[in-house]
C-alpha cells in the first residue's frame, strides 16, 4: 500500500448475517484518502456510507479485504489498539451529537483530552481554544440540555477537533440541524480543515453538505459508483 495515503481501503467487503441471509454492506471498496481532504460519501440509505465510516474509524472490522488507516491495518488491530487509534488520531461527529448529558460543554470538549497524558492547564487551554474555534467559549459552563441543536453540534465539532486529530469522520452531521446552523457548522469545519489540515470525511445525503465537498464518492449498494473531485458550490447559496 502507498504510504502517502492517510487512509487506504483495498477490496473492502463487509457483510452481515441476517438470519439465513447475508447482507452485503460494502462490496469490494477501493478508496484512498490523502491528508487534508474534505470528502464525502454520498448515496441513499443502506448504501454503506456509515459502515465504511465505522471501519475507517476502527469502530468496526471488515469481513474481507483491508483498510489501512495511518499505517494501522484495521482488521489486525486489537480492541485496545483500535481504541488507541481513535483516541490519538480520529475524531467523530454524529448525527445526534452524542454529548454526555451530565457534563458541561467544557467537560464534554475536554473529555478526549482526559485520555491523554496532559496537565490540567494544557487541557484547559486546548479545550478553550476548541470552543473559541466553534464560537462557544461563552457557553463553556452550560449543560448540553441548555443548548440549541446547532450549538450542540458545534460542541460535538469542538470535541472532535480538540485533540487535533488527523482525521474527522462525520456521520450525517447536519441531519438534525436547520439550514442556517448547517452552513455555520460546515463553514467551521471547512476552516478547521484549512487551518489545521485535518482530513474530513462525511457520510451524508444532505445537499447542504454536498455543496461544501471537494471530493464526492457515491456509494450504491455498498460499491463505489462514482469518485469525483468537485468544486464547492456553497457560494451558490439558497437552501432547498
Amino acid at each position, binding site marked *: 500500500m502507498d504510504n502517502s495515503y492517510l487512509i487506504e481501503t483495498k477490496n473492502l467487503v463487509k457483510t452481515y448475517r441476517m438470519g439465513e441471509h447475508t447482507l452485503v454492506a460494502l462490496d469490494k471498496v477501493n478508496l484512498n484518502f490523502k491528508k487534508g481532504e474534505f470528502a464525502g460519501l454520498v448515496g441513499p440509505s443502506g448504501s454503506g456510507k456509515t459502515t465504511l465510516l*465505522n471501519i475507517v*474509524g476502527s*469502530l*468496526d472490522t471488515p469481513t474481507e479485504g483491508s483498510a489501512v488507516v495511518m499505517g494501522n491495518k484495521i482488521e489486525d488491530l486489537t*480492541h*485496545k489498539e483500535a*481504541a*488507541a487509534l*481513535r*483516541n*490519538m488520531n480520529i475524531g*467523530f461527529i*454524529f448525527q*445526534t451529537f*452524542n454529548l*454526555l*448529558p*451530565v*457534563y458541561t460543554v467544557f*467537560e464534554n470538549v475536554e*473529555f*478526549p483530552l*482526559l*485520555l491523554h497524558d496532559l496537565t490540567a492547564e494544557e487541557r484547559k487551554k486546548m479545550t478553550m481554544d476548541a470552543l473559541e474555534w466553534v464560537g462557544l467559549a461563552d457557553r463553556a459552563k452550560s449543560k448540553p440540555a441548555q443548548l440549541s441543536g446547532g450549538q450542540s453540534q458545534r460542541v460535538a465539532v469542538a*470535541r472532535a477537533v480538540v485533540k487535533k486529530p488527523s482525521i474527522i469522520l462525520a456521520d450525517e452531521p447536519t441531519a438534525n440541524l436547520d439550514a442556517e446552523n448547517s452552513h455555520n457548522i460546515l463553514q467551521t469545519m471547512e476552516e478547521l480543515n484549512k487551518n489545521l489540515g485535518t482530513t474530513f470525511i462525511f457520510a451524508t445525503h444532505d445537499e447542504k453538505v454536498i455543496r461544501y465537498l471537494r471530493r464526492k464518492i457515491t456509494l450504491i449498494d455498498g460499491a463505489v459508483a462514482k469518485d469525483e473531485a468537485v468544486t464547492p458550490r456553497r457560494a451558490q447559496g439558497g437552501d432547498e
Partner: protein
Amino acid sequence: MIIPKLALRNILGAGIRTWLNVIVLSFAFVTIIWTQGLYQGMSRQSVRATVDAEYGGGQYWQENYDPLDPLSLEDGHGPIPESLDTLIQKDQATAILVIQGTIYPNGRIQPILIKGIDPQQKILSLPTEALETEEAEIPAFIGTRMARNAGLKEGDTITLRWRDVQGTFDARDVEIAAIMNTTVPTVDQGQIWVPLKTIQELAQMSNEASLVVLQKDLKVFPDVPGWNFKSRYFLLSDIRELVQSKSAGAMILYFILILLAMLAIFDTQVLSIFRRRKEMGTLMSLGMTRWKIIQLFTLEGALHGVLAAIVAAIYGIPLLTLFAKKGWALPGSADSYGFAFGQKIFPVYSAGLVLGTTLIVLVITTIVSFLPTRKIAKLKPTDALRGRMS
C-alpha cells in the same frame, strides 16, 4: 485517576436516582451497625453483670457439684480445702453451699435452691449485708423475679424446708430481709440466699461448700484435690452461645437489608447500562477501551456504597452515639431472653464492627455493580452507538 473522577461526576449527575440508592444503602449500614452494636452491648453488659454477681474470677466446684444436674446436688458438697479456705480468709474468695429445698409461699409448694453465702463476703455484688441482721432468726434475700413469682415482699416470713446431710427433712421460718434488684436471672430465679454458717449448721454440713468463687483479679489457679477449677471463660460459654444464637438470628435481618439495597443497586446498574448504551458507544469512539468503560460503570455502582457510608456517617454517628449514651429501654418481657441485662441496653460499636460492616457492604456493592457490566465486554462500538446491545 480519570475513571474515579468520571464515575463520581456521573453518579452525582444522575441526581435523585443516585440519592435514592444511597439513602436505602445508608439505612442498611446504620441498621446493621446499630443491631450488631446492640448485641455487642448486650453481650458485654451480660458478661459484666454475670461476672460481678455470680462467676467472679472463676470458680472451684466440689467434684460432685453440677448446677445443671439437680439429682446430684445432694452429693455436691464437701469440706472446704485448706488452700481455698486460705483464699477465703484473705477475702480473695467466698464459699457457697447449695442445697435443695422447698418454700411454701401463700400456701403453694415451690421447690427452690437454698444458697448459703458469707454475709461479709466482698467477692460478688450481692446484697449479703442484709443477712447480717439480728432481728430475724434466719434472714434471707431473694431477687425481684423470685419475689414476683412467689408473691413475696421484704419482711415476709415463709417456711423453708430442706434435707440435712442424713436425708432428714427439717423446716424453719425464714424472714425476707431484702429483695435484690439484679439483672442476672441465674442468681435470682428459683433460689433463696441465706447466711452460710446457718445453712451449714442446719444441714449438718459444717465448713462445707458446693463451690468457691474467686476474686476477679486472681491470676493463679492451683489444682485442688477433690475440687475442679472452672474458668471464667468456661462459665461464660452459655452466655456467649446465647448471644451468638441471638446474633445469628439477626443475620436474617442483615441479609434482607443487604439484599434490598443490592437489588436497588443491581437494578440501577442494569437500567443504567441499558439506557446508556449510546453513551458507551460515544466513549468508545472517543478512545475509551471496553475495560475502562467496565471500570467506570463498576466504580459508579461501587461509589453508591462509598456515598452511602458517608451519608450513614452524617446521620448515623449522632444517632448511634445518642443510643450508646442514652441506651435502649427494653420491654418488660426481655427478662425471658435469659440474658443478664438491665432495663436498658447500651450498644457498643467497636472499630471492627464499623469497619467490618463498611468493608462487607462495599465489597458486595462492588461485586453487584460489576455483574451487569460484563455485558459491556461483548459490546461492539457500532451496536452501542445505535443503542443496541451486542
